[in-house]
């Protein structure tokens, strides 16, 4: 569970991007839009991680103190965010197809 804590840094903006992507996908559920949204999500995530690296980097000492290294810190954020994005888009597509 401790790996969820680094994600808190980006939870709000990352969730906002995922929500917007889901809304777009709801309105235009096509393959080209999905590719476009994936790229948008990846670019947004890179931007967020860059921000964390340069402006919130000091907190990594806290996570190291609880056994999460530098790689684990960034990797957990990427994995959790992408997992939430994939689950959200699959759910949207599933519901849309049902409709």
């Amino acid at each position, binding site marked *: 569970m401790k790996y969820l804590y680094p994600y*808190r840094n980006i939870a709000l903006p990352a969730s906002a991007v995922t929500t917007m992507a889901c809304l777009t996908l709801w309105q235009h559920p096509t393959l080209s839009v999905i590719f476009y949204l994936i790229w948008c999500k990846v670019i947004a995530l890179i931007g967020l991680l860059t921000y964390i690296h340069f402006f919130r980097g*000091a*907190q990594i*000492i806290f996570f*190291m*103190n609880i*056994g999460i*290294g530098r790689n684990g810190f960034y990797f957990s954020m990427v994995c959790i965010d992408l997992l939430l994005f994939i689950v959200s888009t699959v759910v949207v597509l599933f519901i849309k197809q049902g409709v």
Partner: protein
Amino acid sequence: MMNVLEADSIMVDYGVVSFLSDIYLRCDQGEIVGLLGRNGCGKSTLLQIIFGSRIAAQKSIRINGEYLSAGYKNSNIKFLPQDTLIPANITIRDAMRLLSVERKVVAAVFPESVPFLEQTPARFSGGELRFLELVLILCSDAKFCLLDEPFTGLSPVMIERAIALMQHAKKEKGIVVTDHRYRDVTQCSDRLYYLSSGRLRQIDSEEQLVNLGYKV
């Protein structure tokens, strides 16, 4: 078994300038080791390398003779950095849980903080937060604690409490402390090291600090 932390063969250089080169630091369980030196001599860098948050060209960090790739792994070493430790978006209660520190321990050592343990660090003043972070590091399950300027922002009475806490904590762990309040460091330390020109040497008396140009 008494635990022993040793750090040597540390090499850090910035281009052609050798920053740390002649280092041997030893800290036994049951002692407080003071680390003194002028501004910019590499005290914080040395602690960061031992902890594993900074990469060195070469290093050898050992606990009981066993080599560590990074001190923070396996919870052997905890580190209190110069800057704030607890991230702004984590409550004190969560920080305590993540660092395996029980509420009753914090309540016994720092009872003033108890009503605010559900809050984030923003609720505390700089000095209160510093003392609370010190409590969390010293009361964790680590074998060794590295404290980088733990007295910064603390009032004299809080410094006395911090020193008393360190004296109590050293029964179960080794502590390495560096701070520019050298009187407090010399008061609480069982052994003193002085770092200058990349060399770490053990000193036996305060007079040596004068001779070394650390104080007048």
